[in-house]
């Protein structure tokens, strides 16, 4: 692994994003706006706001990074730049880590805006350290980004890439314990829920919001998320082919 080539890739991806200020603004502002909307909707029921506001920290970074990465990487695949990159000394791992670092930087900014708005303006309470919530959010963004990269291999147009959102992300929201506790799901679906990474992210942000100390269960959730990121990035590497038909 060459740090120079990896960071060069990170820089290039960030420069591309910087030339698209509208997308950056949407990425940074939309999660906070959604939280504000929930605050207004549940003004009469602060405990409900607390219950539905916290999951935003897991859902928004995941969903937004999934979309942005799948479209960015799909463009790279279709424009010929990916094929060209793979004829240079750049290794697949350097490309993938470069991408993850770039979206990681954006995720940190996104989460900072979101936590700032949540704690200073909207009065969302976290019993545990806010930095843990932010960490889960950033990991979640990386997870979404890794899945987006993988999904881009199976799309031939941006329309298709966007359709993967309802196909791959919505089921995770429905089964992740957001609508009903996972314990109440039918047995078969419990297994499915246990296999979906967003379940652990939702569990983790909820845990930090209600308990003041980090426990083994929380670390376990984080470990599952990190493990999934590594596995999905590795699967993504397989979809980057030097030789095509």
């Amino acid at each position, binding site marked *: 692994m060459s740090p120079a080539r990896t960071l060069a890739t990170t820089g290039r991806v960030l420069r591309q994003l910087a030339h698209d200020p509208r997308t950056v603004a949407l990425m940074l502002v939309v999660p906070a706006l959604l939280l504000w909307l929930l605050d207004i909707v549940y003004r009469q029921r602060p405990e409900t706001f607390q219950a539905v506001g916290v999951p935003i920290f897991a859902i928004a970074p995941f969903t937004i990074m999934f979309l942005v990465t799948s479209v960015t990487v799909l463009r790279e695949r279709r424009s*010929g730049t990916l*094929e*060209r990159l793979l004829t*240079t000394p750049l290794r697949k791992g350097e490309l993938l880590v470069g991408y993850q670092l770039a979206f990681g930087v954006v995720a940190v900014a996104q989460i900072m805006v979101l936590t700032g708005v949540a704690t200073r303006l909207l009065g969302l309470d976290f019993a545990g350290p806010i930095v843990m919530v932010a960490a889960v959010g950033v990991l979640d963004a990386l997870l979404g980004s890794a899945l987006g990269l993988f999904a881009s291999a199976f799309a031939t147009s941006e329309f298709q890439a966007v359709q993967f959102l309802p196909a791959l992300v919505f089921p995770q929201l429905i089964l992740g314990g957001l609508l009903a506790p996972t314990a109440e799901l039918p047995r078969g679906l419990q297994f499915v829920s246990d296999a979906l990474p967003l379940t652990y992210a939702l569990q983790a942000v909820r845990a930090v919001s209600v308990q003041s100390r980090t426990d083994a269960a929380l670390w376990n959730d984080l470990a599952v998320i990190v493990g999934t990121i590594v596995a999905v990035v590795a699967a993504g590497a397989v979809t980057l082919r*030097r030789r095509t*038909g």
Partner: protein
Amino acid sequence: MEQTIVIADLAVKRGGTTVLRGLDWTVNSGQIVGLLGPSGSGKTTLLRAVVGVQRISRGEVTVLGLPAGHPLLRRSVGYMTQAAAVYDDVSVDDNLHYAARLLGVGRRRVNSVVEQVDLSGQRQQLVRTLSGGQRSRVSLAFALLGEPRVAVLDEPTVGLDPVLRAALWDLFRVLAREGTTLLISTHVMDEADRCDRLLLLREGRAIAEGPPQQLRDRTGTATLEQAFLHLASADSGVAA
């Protein structure tokens, strides 16, 4: 003269149709070799096979003594695709500095290549705002940046005005004199005339090979265009 590219019995199938059917060919170092043929004749597929990004169904492609696409060749082979493979949403400089860091070359090299492809005035411009010809020169600069020993260029002068086209061909000649082997596909006959050797492709087969003058002499024609037509009709006669 050293053999830079050796192709033996190369066959490629794409989506059920045969694109190249058992091609044998050798390219010597320090030459400009032109690849001529109608669209669909397999030019791009052949170039991709030399770069090592084409899945092949039979045969062998050797570049500088290594199998095409070998990791050690990634610094020695520069590839310019037919559609400009560049990042539209950043500047010319951003594109080339990124390429420079991947290839491990310095800023001074970027400056000199930018001058060679005549983009000094557009360095800070976003690629998406450039004309088609300027865009393809960014792509050409990317391919030449690493001072490759083999440059594989797929229609590098499409959409350029004649003055600029001539300037680029002068550049190709300079590079060849310095020892670079250039493999260039083209549609333009007067460009083909500036190559040291030509390979005429038709329906995935080589119908003729040799220096332009020799091809004209052999067919008893005055221009390459006529020579090509002559060879193509003779080929059809054989096929029928």
